[in-house]
């Protein structure tokens, strides 16, 4: 019950931050985002206590972790890069909490031997950070199609992707480094790995094209295609029952 209450609380605060951000009530939006972060932290602790382990055992656990990284990132973007993206980061946090509420509640979680590695926490955390930021970039790419400030939004999306890409790279290749000791091969062409590589390649293509004016119109679709690849890697590969994956313990 407490977990549901905290999840709903976090979702409502993220939604409020998003609405206030859109209405240019910057200070209130940041306050709500801070509240969302505190609630998400309490949720992380509650999940950890319930699971009696690091709360990365299922998709609900992982989705609950998103607001925890998105709120400080919004603050960082505003403080260090001078771009106020609170509304967009809050929207991504709200989306993740909606996803978390849709996932079934699993009381306990046990780390199987292959998961007991020092790579586990950094690998998952870096992917959560990367996917969170890439969600924000996709929202910005969609928002850049409408209203005023299209180019500024596209630039902001680029800033966010630049922030996310090293995390995505770390997630992908740290997984390979881990697999080398756990599965006796650094690349197994598992379906999850294949889609993670596809996602990485899409953003790689984005980086190769962003420097050319003639390809400027490709950037928005590429950000969206990249986000679709993220969704497939994170949700479809995990949730489709017909898929057999050596990453199946991540379901």
């Amino acid at each position: 019950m407490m977990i549901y209450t905290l999840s709903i609380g976090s979702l409502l605060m993220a939604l409020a931050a998003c609405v206030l951000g859109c209405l240019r009530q910057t200070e209130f939006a940041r306050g709500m985002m801070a509240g969302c972060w505190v609630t998400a932290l309490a949720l992380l602790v509650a999940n950890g206590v319930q699971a009696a382990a690091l709360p990365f055992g299922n998709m609900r656990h992982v989705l609950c972790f998103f607001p925890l990284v998105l709120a400080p990132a919004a603050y960082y973007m505003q403080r260090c890069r001078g771009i106020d993206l609170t509304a967009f980061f809050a929207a991504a946090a709200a989306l993740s909490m909606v996803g978390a509420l849709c996932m079934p509640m699993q009381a306990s979680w046990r780390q199987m031997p292959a998961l007991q590695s020092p790579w586990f926490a950094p690998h998952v955390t870096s992917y959560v950070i990367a996917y969170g930021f890439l969600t924000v970039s996709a929202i910005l790419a969609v928002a850049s199609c409408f209203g005023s400030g299209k180019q500024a939004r596209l630039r902001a999306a680029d800033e966010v992707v630049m922030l996310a890409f090293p995390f995505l790279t770390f997630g992908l290749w740290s997984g390979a480094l881990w697999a080398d000791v756990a599965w006796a091969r650094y690349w197994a062409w598992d379906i999850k790995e294949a889609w993670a590589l596809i996602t990485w390649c899409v953003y790689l293509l984005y980086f190769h094209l962003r420097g050319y004016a003639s390809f400027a119109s490709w950037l928005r679709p590429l950000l969206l295609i990249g986000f679709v690849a993220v969704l497939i890697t994170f949700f479809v590969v995990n949730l489709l029952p017909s898929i057999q994956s050596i990453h199946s313990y991540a379901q």
Partner: protein
Amino acid sequence: MVLGAACVLLLAGAFPILGAPAVFRGGVMMLIGVVAALLALWGGWRLSAGKHAQFIFGLVSLYFTTSGLITAWMYGCKAVEHAMLGGAMWFGALAMACTMVVGLLFAVIFGFFLLKLMSPRLWLAGVHWCCTLIVAGAVLDYCYEQNAYIHATVGDGDKIDAVTTTAGENHSLGFALQVNDFKVTHYDAAAPATPQQHHLLITEQGGQYTAAVHMHGRWMPLPKGHLTETEDTLQLAGRRFLKSEVKAHPTIAYPCLLVSSPMPQGVTGTGTVKEYSAACTVFTDHRGRPETRRETLKVNAPIACKDWHIYLLSYSYDPICNQVTLVLQARNAPGRWYALAGMVGLIICTACWCWWRREQITPEPTDKEAPAV
């Protein structure tokens, strides 16, 4: 080429119904990889144009900075581990401090050169060359990697010194591996104070011998094939008994023989497996002298010896024979270090390029709006 690669990626293995992992592991994917690596090599060369010496010294500095950090981390951890295992605390603290200081000094000095030498453009060149290094390692492994699956019985005293690879070739390991003991721990279950016993019972009724095993609190008769009989001996679960050992027993109506032996720890436990490990002995040589090493083989902790890595993949327990069979993988991958170095380099170079960059996105030519988000 990009479209072709996308088709292979998407249609060959990225969907379960169309999935064909053999395509990924085949020559087509390798060819795409080689072409991509050559393009990355060319891209890196162009990006570092005019600054090749600076770039090479930058990469050397990166190597030493990373080595310094890894040294500080690994030996610091080992010192802490030593202190935690009962070693002298002052020794642990001193060793940790010394290695940390040396490693960090290394990292600071070479890190300074690194920051001076590398520009965002050279970091980007580094990203490209690391991609080439990964593919080079993968191609080497594709051509020369040797893999062999070994089924090793715990405690049978056999030494594994040669393997038959998946390609059907026999290879000497250059060392011998013996699996002495095996242990499983489960969540929510405490390990028993004394080892559990495995019981086999051989009975004789009218000249006919039958065997039973004690499982789940009751005696389960074994099918006939398990017990083989010669003129004066009986063979069961890989062990030989004399028929004369089957004697009258005060509480059992027929002559019988009870054979008890300790069970490997935790193999019959219930619940989620927490950890399993095998105690092994590696018989090798060091500078021409024989050396015996005691190692613990675990998931996520392979044994490395003479270009070979031995991985623990899984295990099975035969309740009749009371034997644990480990599924091990022996792997000799000559390109592994190149691929792993490329991966580490790629992570570092990508982070440095993305986070210390000075390039901006090229604006769309038609858009002339105010920069409000």
